[in-house]
Structure formats: structure tokens, C-alpha cells
């Protein structure tokens, strides 16, 4: 799905404002899902490749026990590579947390539209709505110690 982000230069009011927010959240969710999927595919392919290399390294070790140091170093390097790719997959899998927050927000906006269509009443207090998600990609976030 390719959604189009709403034009921020054309602010809406009432039901239009709710729909504009939903459009914005959908576009952001689309971007996050695409980035996460790409990251996960790359991670799983890399893990698959490294596990195959690990099998070959073990077979080579079994065939040549005399070269233990070289084989051990190769296996260590592969273990580190696999751990790194698993870490990248864990980062990619965090899309669920962010998209779930966006879905909750969209639900609140849809409830607002429903209320407006029903009796023109004001929707729930905007301050109680889930806050917008800032991320538009799946790169790992910053760390700051106080």
C-alpha cells in the first residue's frame, strides 16, 4: 500500500482534522512497515547465510582437526556475526510497538469522526489521545544518560 501523507499546509477542522490525522498516521505506518520488513528480510537472510557458513566451518574443522586455532577463530567470527544479525532483527521487530501506538491513535480519531457524524458532539479530550509516534524509519534510536 502506498498512502499519501496529508498536506500540512491545508489544515482541517472538525471531522476533516480527524481524517487528516488518520491519513498522516497511515502514511507513517506504511513507511515503518516497509522499513521494518526490509530490515527483517535482510537480517533473516544474513542469519541463514551465516548458519550455512558455520556448518561449512564445522565440517572443515572435523576434516582438519590440526588447524584448530584457525577454525575456532572462524567460528567465533561467525557467532559474532549471527548475534549482530539477531540484534538487527530485534530492532526491526519493534515495528509492532510503534504501529500499535499509531493504530490506537487512529481508533481515537475514528471515534471522533463517529461522534461528529452521530450528533455533532465534540470528540474525547484531545489531551487524552495517544501521542503521535515520531519515528518514520526503523533506525535505532539515540541513548542519553543524564
Amino acid at each position, binding site marked *: 500500500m502506498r498512502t499519501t501523507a496529508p498536506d500540512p499546509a491545508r489544515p482541517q477542522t472538525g471531522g476533516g482534522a480527524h481524517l487528516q490525522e488518520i491519513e498522516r498516521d497511515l502514511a507513517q505506518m506504511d513507511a515503518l512497515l516497509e522499513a521494518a520488513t526490509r530490515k527483517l528480510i535482510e537480517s533473516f537472510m544474513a542469519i541463514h547465510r551465516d548458519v550455512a557458513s558455520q556448518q561449512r566451518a564445522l565440517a572443515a574443522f572435523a576434516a582438519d582437526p590440526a588447524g584448530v586455532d584457525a577454525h575456532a577463530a572462524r567460528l567465533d567470527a561467525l557467532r559474532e556475526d549471527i*548475534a*549482530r544479525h*539477531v*540484534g538487527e532483527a*530485534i*530492532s*526491526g*521487530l*519493534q*515495528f*509492532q*510497538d*510503534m504501529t*500499535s*501506538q499509531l493504530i490506537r491513535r487512529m481508533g481515537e480519531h475514528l471515534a471522533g469522526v463517529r461522534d461528529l457524524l452521530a450528533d455533532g458532539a465534540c470528540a474525547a479530550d484531545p489531551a487524552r489521545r*495517544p*501521542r503521535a*509516534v*515520531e*519515528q518514520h524509519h*526503523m*533506525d*535505532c*534510536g*539515540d*541513548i*542519553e*544518560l*543524564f
Partner: protein
Amino acid sequence: MTTAKTILTVDDSGSLRQMLSFTLKDAGYSVIEAVDGNDGLEKARSQTVDLVLTDQNMPGMDGLSFIRALRGMKNYKSVPILMLTTESGDDMKAQGRAAGASGWLVKPFDPARLTEVVRKLIG
């Protein structure tokens, strides 16, 4: 034999808690999970915790309120508390710092960097 340090993770997302537990247990820590601020306070009262990792946006009690309440408890005056959240604005970070957070981590987290920070704080 040394006892593993205990980390309390507070997040309403089950998948996030699962990934945090996997990462931290793999690094040798013991992990307690809580689903929101209220659950986190209950777990913190009943068990000894060496470090707390909390989300901000949670139903019920949010992360900032949870940190304030935790800092009010005698045993948690100096326990490191890290905020792990999608929020990255300076204003929110300032509020976190004022509430008593020891650090701010923006999601998505990188397991290696998270482990590195935790090691720096509690060994």
C-alpha cells in the same frame, strides 16, 4: 556464585517486553516484567530490583508518573531508571530528568547498545 542482577521492564507492549527479556537474559540478567506503571510499582515493592527500564506511553499510569512514584519509595532513591520510548523531544527528556530518570533511550532499541548501557550502570 554471584547472583544475577535483576531488571524490571515496564511496557504495555507484550512483544517489546519479550524482546527486552530475550536481550537482557542473554546478557546474564534476571528480568521481571510489568505491563504498566501500576503493575511496575507492585513488582518493585515486592522484589529487589537493580535497574528499571520503562516505557512512557502506557494506559493507566504513564512512565513519568511511574518514575515519580518509584523515586518516592525508600529503596528506589538511587536505583537507575531508564526511559525507553518513542518520544525523543527535548521537552519530554527534560520532564523525564526532572521526574528522576537516569537516562533516555529512544525506540527502536539496539540490543548491543542497550546491554552496553545497562552494564555501565549496574555491571
